[in-house]
């Protein structure tokens, strides 16, 4: 059963192999202190890998993710803020690299859509219930039947 599982996993990964990545053995990043390391991991966890789009920059093994991690660390050491580093990546790779999209015109629907839907649904429910409450006076048998579901 185990080998089968591995083959299935491999088969699942096949589409990812179609777009090529440069070879090479990436050297692990060296952090100066634990504060820098913590800040780096927090930042990389909020950035999406541009190649394997369902992984964060911190998790991805793709070569481009390694290059970007190195760049993020270099920018941190240049003294740039987290917001500036995110801006740097958005300018090059687009809004997509942010796991938490910013609030602007094009993402307004994304941010407010769910709340608006909930509000519409709630309003409709309240209106509907009120109207029904008026139609069937409380205490009658009909209202008992209605309440069953």
């Amino acid at each position, binding site marked *: 059963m185990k080998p089968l599982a591995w083959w299935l996993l491999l088969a699942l990964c096949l589409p990812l192999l179609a*777009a*090529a990545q*440069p*070879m*090479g053995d990436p050297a692990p990043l060296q952090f100066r202190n634990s504060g820098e390391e913590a800040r780096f991991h927090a930042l990389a966890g909020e950035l999406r890998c*541009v190649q394997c789009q369902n992984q964060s920059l911190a998790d991805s093994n793709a070569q*481009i993710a390694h290059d970007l991690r190195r760049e993020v660390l270099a920018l941190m050491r240049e003294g740039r803020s987290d917001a500036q580093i995110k801006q740097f990546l958005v300018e090059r790779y687009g809004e997509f690299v942010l796991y938490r999209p910013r609030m602007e015109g094009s993402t307004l629907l994304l941010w407010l859509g769910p709340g608006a839907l909930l509000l519409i649904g709630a309003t409709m429910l309240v*209106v509907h219930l009120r*109207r029904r409450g*008026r139609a069937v006076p409380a205490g009658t048998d009909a209202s008992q039947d209605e309440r069953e579901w």
Partner: protein
Amino acid sequence: MSDNTPAPAPPRRLPLVAVIIGALFFLGLLGLMLYSVSRSDRPDRDSLPSALIGKPAPAFTLPLLHDPSVKVESRDLLGTPYLLNVWGSWCPTCRDEHPVITRFAETKRVRVIGYNWKDPRDEALRWLEQLGNPYMLVLADEEGRTALDWGIAAAPETFLVDDHGIVRWKYSGAITQDVLDQQLIPALEKVEAASRGKARR
């Protein structure tokens, strides 16, 4: 708004507004599904839109692959449009794409410039020797630092830059004859028409 007046409609019927909103919602979902299905056979369906479209190509200084002592700057390439084709000898898809790029470059319609990405120099040169070199010149970015400015995520990728150095079109993945005919040529025609229009004025 008196509580005692019964509503005229039977209590179980949904209001018309709710039916309309529900129907619109359903149609929207259906449209989304149809859109996804219509895109599902596109090889670049997973690729991200380039953040550079309509913006100036990044400023860079890169050595030539064939003569690293010669450095090319981005502003050296201004004046006429060019196609930038990102490749590496480690990239099997670039090998598939190579004949199409070669055939297109031979039409001499636009300058085709190679961008050799994260590739040891000798391997890149051997690759070109084996498969032929269709490029007017090949820029070498062995470290991959400049590639980040271009927003390159994987090879092959191809950019069309106009005569003013503005990125007009980008394709992620192997360029095929269909991509050439249906996307690159129309984009190129637009670029050419724009520069002709300016020249006439």
